[in-house]
């Protein structure tokens, strides 16, 4: 599902533009992907770079500037329902893909973004095909706090459980982030400090302590060396971070 822009002026919808390209340029000159023939718009006014489900708006030193939700921007990570203003024109950004990253998160995650933006179209395409789109976003999470490291790929052939589990971080810098447990093994924690693994089995999800002096805590009770089955809304505590396990429909 790709994001799109709704171009309007004075409340009148002019055009709907799907963001399918990696680079979508906006400007007065005809070679732009989105041409707005108005003198208030610079020849090359701004550009939107789209990587998987994320889009980034950048002002190309335009004369009259690029505004998002009333604020002038140089570079901006577009969020669903953002309104981009160029002169009298408005571009509403719509991204139906549910995204857990909030504007606040973005600032911390920024370190990884330039890296992502450098990715070639080829890589982007390859990633897009893989079923684990979330992984890209989660990688940022991983680098940030050493949490939620996706460890294993390749879902079991016949042994896929009928339900899909996920983890949502409740506290700390990554609060609000979600990680789908699509893999047979997902390790959580900081290597060398405390690591736990969530295994996906035909009859459900299980959490087991891997390494570290402290054992994970589930619903306030410290685990022993044995695996513990995870139930919907169980709260896991690991390296001082609380997260909730839940079953997705």
């Amino acid at each position, binding site marked *: 599902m790709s994001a799109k822009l709704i171009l309007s002026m004075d409340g009148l919808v002019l055009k709907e533009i799907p963001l399918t390209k990696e680079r979508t340029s906006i400007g007065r000159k005809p070679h732009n992907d989105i041409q707005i023939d108005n003198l208030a718009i610079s020849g090359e006014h701004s550009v939107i770079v789209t990587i998987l489900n994320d889009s980034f708006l950048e002002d190309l030193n335009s004369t009259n500037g690029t505004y998002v939700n009333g604020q002038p921007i140089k570079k901006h990570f577009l969020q669903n329902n953002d309104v981009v203003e160029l002169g009298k024109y408005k571009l509403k950004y719509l991204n139906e893909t549910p995204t857990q990253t909030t504007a606040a998160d973005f600032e911390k995650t920024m370190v990884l973004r330039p890296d992502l933006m450098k990715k070639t179209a080829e890589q982007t395409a390859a990633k897009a095909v893989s079923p684990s789109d979330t992984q890209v976003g989660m990688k940022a999470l991983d680098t940030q706090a050493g949490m939620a490291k996706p460890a*294993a790929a390749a879902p079991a052939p016949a042994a896929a459980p009928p339900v899909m589990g996920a983890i949502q971080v409740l506290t700390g810098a990554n609060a609000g982030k979600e990680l789908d447990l699509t893999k047979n093994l997902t390790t959580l924690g900081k290597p060398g400090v405390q690591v736990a*693994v969530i295994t996906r089995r035909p009859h459900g999800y299980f959490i087991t302590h891997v390494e570290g002096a402290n054992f994970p805590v589930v619903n306030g009770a410290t685990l022993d060396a044995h695996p513990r089955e995870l139930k919907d809304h169980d709260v896991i505590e690991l390296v001082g971070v609380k997260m909730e396990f839940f079953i997705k429909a």
Partner: protein
Amino acid sequence: MDLSQALQMVSRSDAGMVRSHNEDAVFTHAAMGLVILADGMGGYNAGEVASGMATTLLGSELEKAFQKTAPHQIDAAGKLHSHTVLEAEIARANTAIYQAAQSQPQYAGMGTTLVMALFYDNMMTVAHIGDSRLYRLRGEEFQAITRDHSLLQEQIDSGMITAEEARHSQNKNLVTRALGVDPTVEAEIRDYDTMPGDVYLLCSDGLNDMVEDEEIALTLQALSANLDLAATQLIQTANDSGGRDNVSVVLVRIAREYPAARSWWARLLQWFK
């Protein structure tokens, strides 16, 4: 020389989800740096007799042999002592199993695969017969060190089928070599360097037939800090995927270097080389 500080070893063996008994046998001896895995075959309980004989005989005989002379010593014939001993003891185990199969009607036709590794002097000598495997995880790289002695591997080698097609082949269980089925057998014996951090996996085909190499690799990478859990997880994954065969795993992690203790003049000679 006691290697138990340098080598961490864990083994698990499970009958699987379908078979009533376990014909696999495993042996580990961290102090002498020896791991053995055998996957027996033959009717009734003959398979477990063959695999049990292989691991027990080799385990005890090798321990005796290396107490006299260390495996890294060079024989009069200019051969590593480890190779001489392994060849001789595998031949003896083969004869013992073969003779038992010949003399006892209930053991007729029994035999076993064999994969074993002997760790000494920062290296390992691997011997194998049949389709039980040894894999190595070094950093991110996970690869099979042994090549199966199987019809399937021969077909792959000759280009008849691709490795991908082989996964769907019905000929998975046909080995071209086994211990104890013929009067003589040739084990493939090779040396490899080891590095601290390496994780070695010995397994019966109950693992690699049920679980993709990629999945095995990811399990080892994720859980290498906890070998016990990694072994349990591998068995569990095989069983969750159907567990059609017995499944056994031996994991060895090289915790640190383990150079052989040498006399002062040997070290001096080494120095001048």
